[in-house]
């Protein structure tokens, strides 16, 4: 296995809502308001090797999008470090940082809110490469034509505005914009979630084609396990800010080890499961403002024991390349560790 090109080392991202003036004043009188802190991402380790497709799966509020944004350099991590091609991002000089930011591009879920509605496609796709000096202003038009052809859009549409396209075409524009700066790594945040099945299949096929043509590496964020299964080499499952299980895709879908991963996989609707009895997981996803202590999953876990309420499980290797954070695989859930 080659060396990882992207490494996250204990990365956390906290969002803090500062106290407003009224609560500060009330605190002077002894009201005892505290700041609200959301641990969106809580100590995540992740490494991605060249050419790999890593699927990042989880339900809403699990921090998968925030993690994607940390990787893409949109959010700085609150704790922990990100390294790109062996170099920590917080140690880079301005020029290296720009190179790293260009190399990691993001494709968002909703092209209607991530494409500027008042710019023509030729400017949406062509602006960044001109600004960064990848192509001259004079070559912009030819360059845009090349990019649009690459993602399967008719280049004669390049003078149009985003609202003149269908959802699937807009998704392709978002991909063309990301590809225009010659990235090596794409963070796809629910990039096919809003598309109809037949269009989704077209875009997934495009992602696979581009991977082969351009030797791209993907971090593919999705709540849709069937999409992730189809595309990914390795799958990482998150729950409330933490990684609960990570394994090669084939292995994970064959035998998930963490109770949450098992429940998630069992609950995915499939066209092969006819008239099935839905046997859901009890309870709701807790608020990341007040995550449960110990293992975040214990209030919903059918196998939770006393240890789960008190002690945070760490990721343990179960098989080569297969890790899970559960006390079941680390000495049992029974009594508190001494």
């Amino acid at each position, binding site marked *: 296995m080659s060396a990882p090109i992207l490494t996250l080392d204990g990365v956390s991202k906290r969002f803090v809502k500062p106290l407003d003036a009224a609560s500060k004043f009330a605190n002077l009188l002894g009201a005892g308001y505290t700041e609200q802190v959301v641990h969106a991402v809580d100590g995540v380790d992740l490494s991605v090797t060249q050419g790999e497709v890593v699927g990042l799966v989880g*339900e*809403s509020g699990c921090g998968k999008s925030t993690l994607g944004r940390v990787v893409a350099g949109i959010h700085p991590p609150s704790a922990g470090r990100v390294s790109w091609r062996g170099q920590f991002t917080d140690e880079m000089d301005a020029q290296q940082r720009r190179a790293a930011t260009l190399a990691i591009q993001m494709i968002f879920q909703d092209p209607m809110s991530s494409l500027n509605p008042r710019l023509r496609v030729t400017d949406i796709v062509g602006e960044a490469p001109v600004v960064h000096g990848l192509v001259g202003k004079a070559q912009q038009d030819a360059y845009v034509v090349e990019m649009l052809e690459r993602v399967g859009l008719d280049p004669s549409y390049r003078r149009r505005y985003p609202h003149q396209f*269908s*959802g*699937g*075409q807009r998704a392709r524009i978002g991909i063309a914009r990301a590809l225009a700066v010659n990235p090596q790594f794409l963070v796809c945040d629910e990039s096919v979630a809003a598309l*109809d*099945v*037949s*269009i*989704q*299949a*077209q875009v*997934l*096929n495009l992602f*696979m084609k581009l991977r082969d043509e351009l030797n791209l590496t993907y971090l593919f964020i999705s*709540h*849709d*396990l*069937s*999409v992730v*299964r*189809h*595309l*990914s080499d390795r799958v990482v499952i998150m729950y409330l800010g933490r990684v609960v299980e990570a394994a090669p*895709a*084939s292995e994970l879908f064959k035998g998930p080890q963490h109770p949450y991963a098992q*429940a*998630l996989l069992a*609950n*995915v*609707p*499939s*066209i*092969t*499961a*006819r*008239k*099935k*009895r*839905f*046997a*859901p*997981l*009890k309870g*709701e*996803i807790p608020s990341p403002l007040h995550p449960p202590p110990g293992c975040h999953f214990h209030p919903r876990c059918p196998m939770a024991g006393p240890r789960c309420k008190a002690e945070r499980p760490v990721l343990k290797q179960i098989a080569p390349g297969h890790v899970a954070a559960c006390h079941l695989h680390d000495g049992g859930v029974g009594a508190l560790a001494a």
Partner: protein
Amino acid sequence: MAPVLEVSGLKTHFFTRAGTVKSVDGVDFHVDRGEVLGLVGESGSGKSVTGFSIMGLIDPPGKIVEGSIRLNGKELVGLDEEGFRKVRGREVAMIFQDPMMTLNPVLRVDTQMIEAVTAHDRVSHKAARERARDALAKVGIPSPEERLNAYPHQFSGGMRQRVAIAIALLHRPPLIICDEPTTALDVTIQSQILAEMQSLCAETGTALVWITHDLGVVAGLADRIAVMYAGRIVETGAVDPVLDAPLHPYTSGLLGSLPAEGEPGAPLRQIRGSTPSLARLPQGCAFAPRCDFAQADCLAQAPAVTAFPGERGVRCHHPLNLAGVAA
């Protein structure tokens, strides 16, 4: 046994400045007592407009131009607003995709539920509140007595959808139209809602029209499937034959597009092109421009429904998998 709902030749058109949009253009189906019908299609296929037409929720510029909707033998097309007021909630209820849009954000849940009870039944405020509480308990909302005093924004997405289901069940209507009720929910929460709907319908004998784009959900829930494309039902039949041996190339293409079914990493079978504009439908079969099996007659003339035994039907000149239905 007479079906709960019988829709025949339904045409709902929208008369816009850009032309007449034929959202629903000749739809026939029926739902039997206690049956779950999955109405499947992609965006713009007319599946939601079909649901709205049944509920009498089509506003100008839209209009039901033709056809009949019979609910328990009673004709709904042409019914006035006062007539619909008596039907909605008691004989047919609807659950929408986003309960944040259907629950009134400035009224407490009890106000909204008591209003729904007293709309049809002359009962005391206290009795109505008790019924509301029991309905919340039934859909699995913890501490229903306290939750009655909450506002919709104080519920999570899954819980809000439960409230919407509880309201739909207040009068035990024989039919509930569900328009993508679990699409906005997480997988584990979706499973909870589906389990809840399954047990409630088994208990009360309620029939469902389950409108969705998700074939996986339909496979797990429905008895029969109707696949819609460009305002028409292109294929219908029991779940197993439709999913195992689809007759219509569109159904087959849709199933092939599902990432779960293919070999991981292998290219997905995709349907080329995109859904046509409903204002400018091609002459002939609406699917022909995207169809791999289209021939000259497909472009010239729109296919009629070919019926097969076992309530199977397809709208195609050259259906696939014919060996399965001939036997």
